[in-house]
Structure formats: C-alpha cells, structure tokens
C-alpha cells in the first residue's frame, strides 16, 4: 500500500475514514504496517460535507486503490507537439473559467513552475545585462495562462545565444524591441539553478534562458527563440477567445472542438495518460486481472479449436488418401494447414502425399517443417529418412553426387538405424571414388591430348617436308604452265559463266592469274608480296563474294565432317571433341614455327608479309572487306600450291618455290589469325573458309587422302575436281 497516498486520503477524510479503514482492512497485513503512521496524520477535523458512502467505498477498496500496482507504471507520453492539428480537444486552462483569485493563481504558478519548463513571454524592456519579459503562458505538460498575473522574467545576457552576425547577442533583440508593437513572441526557458529556484519561490523572480540545454528531456525538440503569433499554443489562443467572449463555456468549446469529435481521441488520450485500455481495469473484485485465465482468452480458444478442426481435416484427408483420392486428400491437408499453419499431422500427411506423388523436394520440406515444431514425431522422422534416401537416388541419377551424399548423411543423422540410407551412402561413396578415379584418368588423358597435339604439329611438319620435296620436282615445269594459265584466265574473264559448277573452275583460273602476277612481282622484288592485281580486282571481288556465299552454303556441313575426319586422322583416334578453332590456330602456328625455322630469308619475308597483312587488316576496317582480301589471298595461295603440287615433275628454282610455299602458308596462318580476331562475329564463316581452302589443297595434294575425301565432298564438287583434273591433263598435253 502506498503509505503517502493513504496518509493524504486519511488526512482529507478525517477520523471516520480511519476508523472505517481499520474495520474493513483489518485482515490486510499491508494495512497493519501503516496503521501507526496513519494514526498520527489523522487530525480531528472531520469534513461534514463528505458522504459516508464515499468513505465506505474508500475503506472497502483501499487495498486496490492504494496498491502500488494500481498506478500504471508507464507514465504517459507527455510529448508536446507544436503541430496545429489536434488529435484531441485542446482546451484553455481550467482556471480561466473558474475565476480563481489573482493571488492564488500567482501563488500556484510559482508553486508549480519548474526548471526546464517552456514559457512564452513578450519582451518588455532591454537592458545591458539582458532583457525582461512578461510571461504570457506556459507550454508543455503544464498549460497555464499567466498573462494577467504580471509575472516578469529576466533573461540575462549570458543566456542569450549569439546569433553570430552580431558581437552583441542582444542586438538581435533590439530589432524585436523596435517592432514590439507587432508583438515579438519568444519561447523562454526557465533556467534556474537550485539556488535561484529558491529565490523563485519566495521572491517570485524567474530567470529564463534561450539555451536549449536547460530544457527538460521530453521537450528537447522544442525550438527556443522568437516565434510568430501563429505559433502560439492552441490553449493560449483558445483562452484569449474565452476572455473576449464571456458567454463561451468550457462545454461549448469542447463540443465545438474538432479534436473532440475525433473517434480515436479516446485511444490517443489513454496513451497520453498511460492507461492501457484492453486489460481489465476495474475496482470490482471479480474483474481483477488475476481472475482472468490465459486459456479463457479468445485467441487461445481459437487456436485450440483450429487445431482440433485441422486434425479433423487431416483425418478426412487420410481417408481420402487411403482410398486413392489424392486431390481431395490434398485439399483437406491444405485446409488443415490454412487453419493451423504448423499442424504437424497435416504436414506429415501432406509430405507423405507429396512423396507418393513424386514431389520429393516438397515432401522433404514438409517433413522438416513438421519436425521443427515437433522434433520427436516418429512418422515424420521415418518418412523424412525414406524420402531423403529416395531423393538422394534421384540426385545420383542426375550426377549430383555431392548433394546426394549430403542427403544420405542427413538421413543417417536423423536415424542411425536406418540401414537403407547407410547402404545407399556406402554405394554412393564408392561411386564417387570411382568417378574421381575416372576424372583423374580423364585429366591424364587431357594431358596426353596436349602432348599429341604437339606431335600432330610434328606430323604436319613431315607432311610439309614432303610437299616441299614435291615442289622442288615441280618447279621445273612452272614457266610453261604459267603462260598457259594466264591465257586461260584471260579467256575466262571474258566469258562470264554463271553456273555454280563452273564457278569453282573460274575461281581457280582467276587465282591463277593472280598467282602469275604475284610470281612476277616476287621475282622482281621479294619484299613486296601479293599486291592486289590492278586490272582484275573489280571483277574478282564480285565474283569471289558470290562464290564465297555459295561455298559457305555448300560446304558448311561437309567442312565440319571433313575437319572432324581430318583431325581424327591427323591426331589420335579417341579424341571425341570436334575441333575447336583454337586447336586449329595452334596447329597453324606450329606450321608457322616450322616454316620460320626453315630458312632465315623466309623468316624475313614472313615478317614483312605479316606487317603488310596487319596493315591491311587495320586499313580495312569493314569485316567483309577484310574477308574478301583474305579470301583472295587464300584462294590464290591455295591454287598456287595446288598447281605446284600437281606438277611434281617440273624443274624449278628450289629457293623461290620454297619461299612461295612459305608465303602461301603464311597467308594461310595470317588469315586464320585474323579470323580469330573477329571470331565472335563471323567465327563459323571463317572456319568454313579455311575448311574450304584446306579441302582444295588436300584434294589435290595428297593422293592418300583422296579416297577419304571423295566420300565427304558433294557430287558437284567432285565434278569440279574432275574438271580440274581434265584441265590439267589438257594442259600437260599442250
């Protein structure tokens, strides 16, 4: 029991209450402790105007009324808001209506005013040491109107914050002084130290400050300083209204206030006063909070009820499930879970249904949820183990071995007597080991592959050597063939044959003419290889473009197979991958190396060629153009090599021929390099082109591959080759 409160009450009501209390609270041990204290405070004054009913009531309910717990522990939030909107009716101070005498109000003000309170006043005079204000009203927790009380406050200069622009902080308020007719409102803060406060009480003097540090904690946000008339607190302006219109009563003002009709004003004010609304707040014995059982509250009963209802649904669902009506069963389970989200039985049953339907992942998640809310559920555990193993098996098939292993391990962790899981795990681990071994082997193979790639380069080297040897033989007959080819090409140029069959033919011829040109140039100056033939270029390019298109279409498929086959032959048998452009590139590079290694001169020319080629590529930015030129060179070179290889019995300058061969090779390599550079765009095409070139060269050069190739080359191309062979024969006859 709150001793002070009880004392206060007893002092107010007098002897009668005390005797009543002694009578009513005789069994209360708390009261016995305070009885002696109370007896002292009871004065003999007995208020005659108090009804005995009230005293009886106090005496009976004293244990409740004066219980420390009765006063709500959470003090109301006394936030003072400057906003103009009112969540409740803000009323002018009551004393204004009550006509309390001047002296009493003054007294009350000085009694109740405290350090840290916010007051509002009007500057009356400014002196060197500060300025005086006439207080208008207080703001914040205690709302009082003190305008007519002539309460003066002093704001010493040290309590006026400097505005920065002026050396003298008061100069700012001089302006305010000047416009005092327009009323300068200032928030002041009473900033009295303890000593000053005492003076306050007895000498009725107030010191105010404009520094926010002296504010009470809950009003820290209040801005101190000059305010406008609109910023005055509502209770003050309403109070002014009342003083001007005496007919205005408290009741009328309350009814007309917008905040009063706010439907949520009750909740707001309850929060302000710190009263909780939903708990039982009563002086009735039967309504004390202790009589309310947690189980009797609506939410608890509903939960229980939902759970039992959900269980019913699950039962129905299981029946459906047993008789094979899976959809109905699922509906029942879902209904149950809707009512009771964590119903273990429903989760287990639904999981089982999912598992039978094959949705193992969903089943697992259901079982896991069930085990989360009920870790000892036997069925859930059992089913989860089984489902985990099953899912593990699925994953094994999908080659996700590690995940599968995790699932098995989880199953074993759940139930270490579950042999199926152990067995599965053992098998899986063996399988994993096996696959690891396999992988190691594969890796070894990969290494081997790289080694063989190098050997393939060697192989190529061998082939090229042979080529060279053949060329040496051929060179002798070169001059005669050259003249004949030139005449041929000219005649071809004149006659424009449009049939695709002939195209191939023509291309070779034109390349012949190109070659002829090149040869001449090279004989004159070896540093400048492959200048674009001036007279034939236009017709050349056009024809070539169409030709390339054509060849692209025709050869795409066969190139693939061809390259495939070639790689298979040239390398090792068990390479399962289709040749990538990189390996191609590597191969070509190998060629380059071997050639550059062959003779120093060639190396130089090669370098030069390369430079010119690079220049070429940079000059011709358009991808197509670059393609055309490269093609031209390719075709010419290939054609050239072709002829050189064909005529193996010819006698020619060995050095020259070798250089030329190297040239052709170089062009080849540079071409592939360039195609690499725009691989992303026209990768397939460049590959096709290369394949095309290769095909031509191979078809003519190596008789050993011929049979093989004929299998892959379409019939029209075979025709072309036949024609070429015929042509060559004719030429020999000549």
């Amino acid at each position, binding site marked *: 029991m709150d001793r002070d409160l009880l004392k206060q*009450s007893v002092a107010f009501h007098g002897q009668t209450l005390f005797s009543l209390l002694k009578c009513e609270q005789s069994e209360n041990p708390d009261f016995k402790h305070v009885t002696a204290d109370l007896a002292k405070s009871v004065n003999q004054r007995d208020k005659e105007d108090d009804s005995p009913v009230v005293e009886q009531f106090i005496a009976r309910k004293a244990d409740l009324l004066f219980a420390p717990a009765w006063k709500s522990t959470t003090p109301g939030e006394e936030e003072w808001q400057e906003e103009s909107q009112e969540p409740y009716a803000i009323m002018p101070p009551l004393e204004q209506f009550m006509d309390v005498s001047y002296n009493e109000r003054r007294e009350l003000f000085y009694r109740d005013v405290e350090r840290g309170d916010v007051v509002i006043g009007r500057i009356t005079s400014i002196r060197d040491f500060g300025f005086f204000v006439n207080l208008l009203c207080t703001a914040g927790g205690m709302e009082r109107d003190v305008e007519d009380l002539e309460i003066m406050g002093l704001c010493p200069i040290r309590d006026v914050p400097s505005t920065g622009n002026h050396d003298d902080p008061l100069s700012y308020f001089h302006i305010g002084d000047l416009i005092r007719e327009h009323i300068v409102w200032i928030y002041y803060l009473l900033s009295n130290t303890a000593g000053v406060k005492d003076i306050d009480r007895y000498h009725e003097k107030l010191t105010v400050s404009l520094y926010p540090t002296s504010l009470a904690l809950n009003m820290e946000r209040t801005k101190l300083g000059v305010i406008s008339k609109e910023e005055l607190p509502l209770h003050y302006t309403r109070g002014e209204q009342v003083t001007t219109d005496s007919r205005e009563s408290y009741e009328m003002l309350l009814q007309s206030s917008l905040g009063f009709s706010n439907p949520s004003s009750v909740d707001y004010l309850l929060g302000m006063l710190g009263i909780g609304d939903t708990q039982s*707040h009563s*002086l009735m014995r039967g309504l004390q909070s202790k009589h309310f059982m947690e189980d009797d509250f609506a939410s608890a009963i509903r939960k229980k009820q939902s759970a039992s209802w959900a269980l019913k649904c699950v039962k129905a669902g299981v029946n459906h499930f047993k008789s094979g009506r899976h959809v109905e069963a699922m509906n029942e389970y879902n209904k149950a879970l809707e009512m009771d989200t964590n119903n273990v039985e429903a989760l287990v049953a639904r999981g089982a249904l999912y598992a039978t339907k094959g949705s193992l992942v969903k089943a697992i998640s259901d079982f896991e949820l069930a085990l989360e809310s009920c870790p000892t559920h036997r069925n859930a555990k059992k089913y989860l183990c089984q489902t985990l193993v099953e899912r593990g098996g699925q994953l094994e098939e999908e080659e996700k071995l590690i995940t599968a292993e995790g699932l098995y391990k989880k199953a074993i962790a759940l139930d270490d007597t579950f042999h199926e899981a152990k067995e599965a795990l053992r098998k899986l681990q063996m399988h994993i080991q096996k696959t690891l071994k396999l992988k190691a082997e594969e890796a070894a193979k990969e290494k081997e592959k790289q080694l063989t790639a190098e050997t393939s380069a060697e192989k190529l080297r061998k082939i090229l050597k042979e080529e060279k040897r053949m060329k040496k033989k051929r060179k002798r007959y070169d001059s005669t063939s050259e003249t004949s080819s030139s005449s041929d090409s000219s005649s071809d140029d004149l006659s424009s044959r449009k049939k695709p069959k002939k195209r191939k033919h023509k291309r070779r011829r034109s390349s012949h003419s190109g070659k002829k040109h090149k040869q001449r140039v090279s004989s004159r100056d070896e540093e400048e290889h492959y200048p674009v033939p001036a007279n034939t270029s236009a017709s050349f390019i056009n024809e070539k473009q169409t030709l390339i298109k054509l060849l692209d279409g025709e050869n795409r498929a066969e190139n693939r197979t061809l390259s495939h086959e070639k790689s298979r032959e040239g390398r090792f048998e068990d390479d399962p991958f289709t040749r990538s452009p990189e390996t191609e590139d590597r191969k070509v590079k190998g060629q380059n190396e071997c050639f550059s290694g062959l003779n120093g001169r060639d190396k130089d020319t090669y370098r030069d060629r390369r430079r010119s080629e690079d220049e070429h590529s940079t000059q011709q930015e358009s991808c197509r153009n670059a393609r055309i030129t490269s093609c031209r060179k390719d075709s010419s070179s290939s054609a050239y090599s072709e002829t050189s290889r064909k005529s193996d019995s010819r006698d020619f300058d060995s050095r020259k021929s070798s250089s030329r061969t190297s040239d052709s090779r170089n062009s080849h390599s540079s071409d592939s390099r360039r195609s690499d550079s725009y691989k992303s765009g026209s990768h397939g095409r460049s590959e096709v082109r290369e394949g095309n070139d290769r095909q031509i060269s191979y078809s003519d050069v190596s008789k050993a591959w011929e049979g093989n190739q004929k299998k892959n080359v379409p019939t029209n191309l075979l025709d072309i080759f036949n024609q070429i062979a015929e042509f060559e024969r004719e030429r020999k006859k000549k």
Partner: protein
Amino acid sequence: MLLKFQASRFCVHIQLTMQASRSAHVATGVENNVTAAGESSNETKTHFRVCRFIIETGVKLGMRSVPVATACSLYHKFFQTASLQVYEPYLVAMSCIYLAGKVEEQHLRTRDIINVCHRYFRPGSDPLELDEKFWELRDSVVQCELLILRQLNFHVSFEHPHKYLLHYLLSVRSLLNRHAWSRTPIAETAWALLKDSYHGLVCVRHQPQHLAITALYLALHTYGVKVPAGEREWWQVLCEDITKAQIEAILTELLQLYDMEAKCT
C-alpha cells in the same frame, strides 16, 4: 449451481431466439405486468450478472473500453423495453457484443464470441466442435442481433462519457502540481470507476458529462486531492448544469454497484 443454470440456458438459445422474434411485439405488455419488488431486485441482479458477463467477455476478446460500454448500453436499452421472461439475456448479451463491435468499429468474429462465451459457462471445457450445432448457435446470435436492432429502432450509437472524462482529466491535470499528479492514480481510478458504472443502469440513465464528472470527482476525493477553486468549482466549469446534489446522487448509485457485486457473486 448458478453456472449449471446458466449453462442450461445457453443450450436452449436457439429455441429462445425463435420464441423471441415471435413475441417481440408482446414484450412491452409483459414487462408492465412485472411489478413485484422482489422480482425486480432479482432482475437487477440478473442484469448485473449479464453485464459482468459482457465486460468479462470483452476483456477476453481484447475489446477496448468504448465497445464494451456500447455493448452494455445496448443491453440495458434493450431490456428497458423488453422483458427478461421473454428473452434470453445471455444470448442478447452475446449479440450486443457482436453488434457493439460493429458500431464501434472493432471487428469481432462470431466464432470468438461464441467460443469465449461457451467457455464462460463451462469453464475448462474443450472448445466447441465446429459442427451443425455451432453454426446454429452462430445463426441464433446473428438473428438476435437483428432483433436488438429492431427493438432499439436502429438507434445503436451512444455518446459515452469516456472521451469527456479523458478531456476533463487533462484539464484538471494542468490545474494540479505535476508531482501530485504523477504520484496519485487519479486517472486510473476515474477510468476504472467509469468502466464499472456499466454494470448497472447508471450508464444509460445519466448524461455522459455527468457520469464523467462523477467518476473524476470520486477519484479526486478518494485520494484527497484538492483542486484550487475560484468562484466556481472545477466541475461547475466542466459541466454547467450539474449540481453537487446530482453528483452525490450519481455517486451513490455508482457505489451501490460495488455492493451489488458482493450480493451477486
């Protein structure tokens, strides 16, 4: 004993509702015949118990004070014109709670109301099965709600003293010393008194302002808090047409309810 009686009544709700709607028009006539003094005091006791039931149910349902007050007011208003002999008071009370939730915009579910009430009559029992019986019960509550609406001519919104009291509390608070205020549970006591007043007819018989002032007056007196007085007392300012005698009258009426409690339980 009493609980058994109530429980049995709960079971015949459905029947009673059917009766009730049929005999709605005769109700006023029946009431006039009941004049015996003993019977009326019995009635008061019943009403007290039913109001207690409403308030308790309100707490269990998590209702705010104002909806509970509305429910009680609806109940009192209903039985001002209807007879206890004709209508089952607990069913009416349940419907009043349901209706009050609608009026005061605090949504309450019939299922919760039925659950809590069922448990009130059979403490410790399992919740009702959601079967045919439950739905019939629910229907009877809804039917009874319509009956109440008709009986009250659809005048179902009331002006409660709650917001008056809260505004008065604020005004009085600024009159007092803040330390005195923070030490004394005036607000709590006044609020509790006001809530308790709904046990009886006090809440519908008097103006809300008067009730609020009485509650505040009693709370201030209880703790012996003196409010500075000028030419007029604080309560005179708050409500101009109230007199000291009126306050005393309401006060006595209000405090009688606490005596009633002892008699009824």
